[in-house]
């Protein structure tokens, strides 16, 4: 099968390319890109896509999602999550291990990969648990998990409170050239909290999670990364303090990378007035100052990646009292459009945004993705920068309709997602 993508603005930060060009795809690979490419050599009649006024970027990568399968199929399945991924412009996603059973064994990793292959939409990369059952006491079998296809380790959803254990995890994972992804939250400081601790929590009478619950753990893990020399990736950064600590660590040469999620630069704790349980997420939506610091961190490169922390839940998990509601929001189908607002707001240049959603996560996860170089897998996302649309959660492909962005008016939308040379989503 041959595809010729004609006349789009091709933006590929992995090669510092930004300009109008054609892109030729054959047999699932990118053959070449350039000005006014001739038609394919092998197949004489490629399908030609006229992409004038569209932007063509490497297939987007979301390195932080929850696909819920096995165990919580009523919230999401690998198939429905993959549909949501390609509809959101993502050709590759990594999924966190907090399923039931937890992905701490070869059998669960292999199950996820098999399911993803069966549905055949996005590339799905399992992240395995740091500790057995993510209980924070015994290391899981990193080597075996890597051989089974896991691409990193995380106990996402909670911190490994035992500093010695996370030290060993960093050392052992480094020997396998695998990243350790940490969820930073001191659970003694956050215990009982349901939202950011501050003026809004005080007024609403909801128990607070202080920003320092995150900062304390970020500081600890940065020190451990510095000491061990291992690569550390910090998930869903939400506080000004964490941004500052990571910035300082990077300037000292610590091997740290970090991500944030669109809700942390799009919303603040003010969104919780009215007790909408779709705004309940951990880490919680923070203060205006934190939100501004996240944007600064993205702008100056402290934060390397934007990942959705896609956390689908069923209505039954959310249509309860705020204190009892499940945490997290469904994100795959709004992540890119929310991130594109950073360009409109002057926080990021468009190629810098694409870097944080393609080549940066690919490098952190050591996966051969995120580039349009000749010979690379033909994973491509096409964006219509002028498309105006309104978020309608009833139209999500994800089973999770739990979005606080319902009704938001967006400009710019992924309109085609190509995975391995095959068009897996098309909205043009």
């Amino acid at each position: 099968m041959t595809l010729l993508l004609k006349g789009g603005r091709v933006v590929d930060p992995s090669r510092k390319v930004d300009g109008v060009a054609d892109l030729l795809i054959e047999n699932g690979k990118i053959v070449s890109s350039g000005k006014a490419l001739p038609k394919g050599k092998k197949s004489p009649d490629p399908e030609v896509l006229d992409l004038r006024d569209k932007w063509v970027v490497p297939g987007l990568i979301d390195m932080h999602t929850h696909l819920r399968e096995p165990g919580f199929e009523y919230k999401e399945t690998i198939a429905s999550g993959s549909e949501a991924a390609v509809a959101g412009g993502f050709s590759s996603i990594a999924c966190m291990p907090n399923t039931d059973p937890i992905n701490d064994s070869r059998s669960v990793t292999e199950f996820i990969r098999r399911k993803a292959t069966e549905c055949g939409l996005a590339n799905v990369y399992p992240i395995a648990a740091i500790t057995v059952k993510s209980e924070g006491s015994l290391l899981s079998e990193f080597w075996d998990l890597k051989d089974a296809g896991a691409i990193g380790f995380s106990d996402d959803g909670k911190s490994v409170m035992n500093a010695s254990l996370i030290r060993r995890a960093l050392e052992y994972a480094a020997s396998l050239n695998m990243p350790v992804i940490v969820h930073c939250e001191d659970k003694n400081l956050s215990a009982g909290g349901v939202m950011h601790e501050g003026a809004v929590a005080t007024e609403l009478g909801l128990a607070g999670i202080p920003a320092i619950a995150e900062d304390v753990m970020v500081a600890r893990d940065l020190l451990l990364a510095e000491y061990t020399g291992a690569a550390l990736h910090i998930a869903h950064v939400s506080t000004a303090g964490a941004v500052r600590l990571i910035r300082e660590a990077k300037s000292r040469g610590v091997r740290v990378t970090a991500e944030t999620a669109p809700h942390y630069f799009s919303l603040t704790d003010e969104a919780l007035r009215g007790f909408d349980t779709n705004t309940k997420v951990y880490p919680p939506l923070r203060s205006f100052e934190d939100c501004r610091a996240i944007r600064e961190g993205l702008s100056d490169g402290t934060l390397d990646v934007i990942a959705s922390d896609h956390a689908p839940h069923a209505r039954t998990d959310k249509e309860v009292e705020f204190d009892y509601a499940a945490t997290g929001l469904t994100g795959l189908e709004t992540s890119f459009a929310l991130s594109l607002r950073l360009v409109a707001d002057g926080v990021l240049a468009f190629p810098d945004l694409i870097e944080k959603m393609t080549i940066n996560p690919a490098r952190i996860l050591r996966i051969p993705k995120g580039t349009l170089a000749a010979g690379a897998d033909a994973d491509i996302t096409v964006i219509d920068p002028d498309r105006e649309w309104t978020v309608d959660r009833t139209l999500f492909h994800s089973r999770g309709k739990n979005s606080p962005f319902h009704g938001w008016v967006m400009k710019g939308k992924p309109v085609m997602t190509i995975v391995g040379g095959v068009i897996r989503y098309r909205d043009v």
Partner: protein
Amino acid sequence: MKLRSKDILGIKELSVEEITLILDTADSFLEVSTREIKKVPTLRGKSMINLFYEASTRTRTSFEIAAKRLSADTINISASTSSVVKGETLIDTAKNIEAMNPDIIVIRHSAAGAPHMLASLLKQSIINAGDGAHEHPTQALLDMMTIRSRKGRIAGLKVAIVGDISHSRVARSNIHGLTKMGARVFVAGPATMLPRDIESLGVVAYSRIDEAIRDADIVMMLRIQTEREKQNLFPSLREYATYFSLNRKNIALAREDCIVMHPGPLNRGVEISPDIADGPHSVILDQVTNGVAVRMALLYLLTGGGNS
């Protein structure tokens, strides 16, 4: 004039005019409870449901008496456990109640925001009888009624609220109400029980009782929950009683004509010494009496009264 909303969810949402309307109406209902025949036909044919997910004697009884004195039918539903534990969701319970067509649902719940969820889903009037640490609007209204009747005004008074501010819905509702009505509000409690950014609500916060009650016209003491000791919010009840109780000695710092209030139930000898609770400054039982009148006023106004 009438109330703008079908619900009473918090003092935060009420205007000065609405608060004044409620207090004026409550003043006029006070007399009903002193009659030989303590019943007027105003709400005959209306029904009110008390949906209590948290233990309560005073508030539930007060609502029930208020409704009965207005000739409304009352039904009490006590759910000893949360909706999650019980197996039926709060929304399902509420929709079942709605299907039986009551006029007013009074809800108390340990989760902040639970009344707001019902208010958005049900056509009935919802009255918040206390939601978590968020609001307890009828308590604040009866407190303001008591202050106004004793002092003739609220504006310009100095009010001290002392105790566990972090976990107190009474404190929050009173802070909203009293500051709206022009009082100056000072809060005090152990530093561990002053919620972050409390000053953003327009109060001055102290971690010593003496500073807050100096020259106060009103001293409002809050109940201390003994289980907070286990959360390391204060070292011991003994220490709390020694350093944070209102007693004969420190009350001398307040104005000579100050009044002492407490939402109940009292921990005698912990946050308030018995001789103060029963002494000449105390208006604690007036608060209870006024509570019935305030709740009568709300039931009347929410069912269409005051419509002229």
